[in-house]
């Protein structure tokens, strides 16, 4: 084990036991009795606000009632009918901003029904059963290409396969799952859940996943559109925004998303290096996930530096509080101006900001923080596919994900809308229904 106070970037700052304890399931699953008690708190609201708040429109009161009446597997089926990645969404959804935020018991007593945990209870129950719960319709002979094996692509592929179409999913990375596999904190998806979920989802049949096939490098959109009956793009945001300050090229400055991906794929977290003093630039979920995990790996100090006020942070209040309880300091209204060091980074210089009529401006007052590792979490950018009209930095779509190119649909983070797993699932699913309608001549 390395001395925890070793300067610079080093692996093994904590013992294997400490690391294992740090990376356990963030929320322990409910057992059957806990689930019954939690389910009993649901009021079975009329036209329930939680359903309205769910991007995939899961019938939440119904599935909770099914748990309460002793049928968690049937509850799981209710969830999967709307959201085939309901298992992952139960783990990663910012429920405090969605279903639980809308729960009338949140309004009444600040203690919503634990919808996320209940959803996990139900989906775990059904997924634990042998076999896949859905059957495919008779084969249609139609072939659809799905580009990107993230939540949008997988949801789209499953729904298409269910309707009897044959689906080929192309994934640039060596493994399917997208951000579920590479982009979220490890303690939200323990025991290889993302990979298990992909395997379970593909259990419907009719889905072939080809990894290591990237659009623009190995695949051409025009060719795909010509060879398949339809194409769905769920390519996400492949690029990251650069940090445009002096010293940004110094050793120790890296992308938060790469750090998270590396961490998620690491066989042994004690071999994963982390700085003693870590600064994360940004204010979204990625910033939180990187900062918290840096702390859990043994960084002595971790600071999130965000350029605007706390209320403007992309990360939910719950996530901010989680970071704080793990010992992450959140510093608001500061922007990076330089990374200092002799070769490798040792310090970051930040300038205080204020929001005026002209927008965000520096005040000229600065501070320096020790930083041997600096993570950029300042947003991701799309690598624009050739031939598609864009809306700013996103692929332009109309209706259920129809792009400017015939036979090509898109959804997920590469299109407008909130960059959330659950939104991606809804968009993938809805595009699949639209593709199905287009291919079979059904109304739509």
């Amino acid at each position: 084990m390395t001395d925890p106070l070793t300067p610079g970037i080093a692996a093994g700052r904590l013992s294997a036991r400490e690391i294992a304890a740090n990376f356990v399931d963030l929320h322990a699953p409910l057992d059957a009795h806990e689930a019954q008690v939690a389910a009993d708190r649901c009021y079975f609201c009329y036209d329930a606000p939680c359903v309205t708040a769910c991007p995939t429109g899961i019938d939440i009161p119904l599935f909770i009632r099914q748990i309460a009446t002793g049928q968690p597997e049937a509850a799981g089926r209710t969830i999967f009918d709307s959201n085939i990645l309901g298992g992952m969404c139960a783990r990663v959804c910012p429920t405090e901003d969605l279903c639980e935020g809308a729960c009338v018991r949140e309004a009444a007593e600040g203690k919503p029904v634990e919808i996320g945990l209940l959803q996990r209870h139900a989906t775990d129950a059904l997924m634990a059963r042998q076999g896949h719960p859905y059957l495919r319709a008779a084969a249609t002979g139609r072939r659809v290409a799905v580009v990107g094996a993230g939540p949008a692509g997988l949801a789209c592929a499953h729904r298409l396969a269910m309707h009897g179409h044959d689906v080929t999913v192309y994934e640039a990375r060596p493994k399917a799952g997208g951000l579920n596999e590479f982009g979220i904190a490890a303690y939200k998806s323990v025991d290889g859940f993302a990979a298990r979920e992909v395997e379970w989802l593909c259990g419907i049949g009719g889905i072939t996943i080809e990894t290591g096939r990237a659009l623009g490098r190995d695949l051409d959109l025009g060719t795909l559109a010509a060879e398949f009956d339809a194409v769905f793009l769920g390519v996400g945001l492949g690029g990251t925004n650069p940090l445009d300050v002096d010293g940004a090229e110094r050793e120790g400055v890296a992308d938060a998303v790469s750090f998270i991906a590396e961490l998620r794929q690491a066989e042994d977290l004690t071999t994963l290096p982390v700085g003693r003093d870590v600064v994360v630039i940004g204010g979204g979920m990625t910033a939180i996930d990187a900062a918290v995990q840096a702390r859990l790996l043994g960084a002595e100090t971790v600071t999130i530096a965000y350029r605007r006020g706390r209320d403007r942070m992309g990360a939910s209040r719950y996530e901010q509080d989680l970071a704080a309880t793990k010992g992450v300091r959140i510093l608001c209204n500061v922007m990076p101006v330089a990374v200092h060091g002799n070769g490798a980074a040792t310090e970051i210089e930040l300038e205080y900001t204020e929001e005026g009529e002209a927008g965000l401006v520096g005040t000229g007052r600065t501070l320096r923080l020790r930083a041997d590792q600096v993570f950029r979490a300042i947003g991701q950018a799309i690598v624009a596919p050739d031939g598609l009209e864009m809306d700013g930095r996103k692929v332009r779509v109309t209706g259920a994900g129809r792009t400017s190119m015939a036979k090509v649909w898109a959804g997920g983070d590469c299109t407008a809308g909130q960059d959330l797993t659950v939104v991606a699932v809804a968009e993938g699913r809805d595009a699949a229904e639209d593709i199905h309608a287009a291919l079979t001549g059904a109304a739509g």
Partner: protein
Amino acid sequence: MANLETTFAGITSPNPFWLASAPPTDKEYNVRRAFEAGWGGVVWKTLGAEGPPVVNVNGPRYGAIWGADRRLLGLNNIELITDRPLETNLEEMARVKADYPDRALIASIMVPCEEEAWKAILPRVAETNADGIELNFGCPHGMSERGMGSAVGQVPEYIEMVTRWCKKYYDRPVIVKLTPNITDIRKPATAARNGGADAVSLINTINSITSVNLDTMAPEPTIDGKGSHGGYCGPAVKPIALSMVSEIARDPETRGMPISGIGGVTTWRDAAEFLVLGAGNVQVCTAAMTYGFRIVEEMARGLSAWMDDKGHASVADVVGRAVPNVTDWKHLNLNYVTKARIDQEACIQCGRCYAACEDTSHQAIAMKPGRVFEVIDAECVACNLCVNVCPVENCISMVEMEAGSVDPRTGRTVEPAHADWTTHPNNPGALRAAE
């Protein structure tokens, strides 16, 4: 602090909380623990006739239903009367009574419906110095198949006959315990009074099957794949017991006869409700079986605090206070008009009132943009369902319309005077009377 000392049918006890004849009172050890915990009285587990005692099943004898978090709401049992020798019970009763002279000790008895059987056992019970006897005419399972328990309680003539025998061969108070498994509780109560009973106690347990095991297709509790109906008790039966107690308290035939209230008494408030509906004391079983004997502390303190708060000096001051307000439907004031009112500040917008009213009642609640729920007075019949299903206490209330105002539902002016069915024009009986 209010005085909880109670005199019931001439029997005094330091408080009105007695343990009912049941498993908790089957032997000296339990009863001593109960008295140490503070119970005012105990009705000893029912004694049978001399001879080989009854036997119980050797599998489960209780079944239950639960609310959320496994809160026990209802219990049923197929246990019979005491399965210990009569002599053992009598010796223990005598010892306990000698050690706790201030507590009420009652012997519950169930022997065959023959005068000789009662004549034989009563002198022996008297020797224990018990304060009185309770005739078990209530148990609905097992013993009833042998012509005892509720088999007697369901035939008023038998009740009267046996009560007479007891008054003849026993000189202390006789309490007749009634079964609720009948159509009109006033009939057995009247029979008991006619037989000379000093008091009645009710309710005994209700015929019940708590649940069915859908894998084995057998009722619970299950004995080797079969089940038999048991006696139901606990919080779930309280409303039935309250109604039956009130019927006896207000019936001209039985009015004034002491009533020992039994059925789901779990808290001081339950006890107070039985008392004001005419019970002179209460008997408790399921609550003790669920939580242990210590609950009597909460009951005694709670009842006392409530009495202090309301200025009631003694239990006797409380008994029957609500009885005058129990009446027949036909006497309810039809000129009393209320409308539901939703407190928008308290409303959490769950919409349960709307679903209940729209789907199952009178379409008298409007759902407006922003999930605002408002009562439509022109449709509201004041049924109270919205109040009952609302998860927020006091969010929806029934507000009385002032006399002189117009009910938008009927278009009629609210009259100040009482008017009920007995005088209503739609009542054929009322019309005849007017002619």
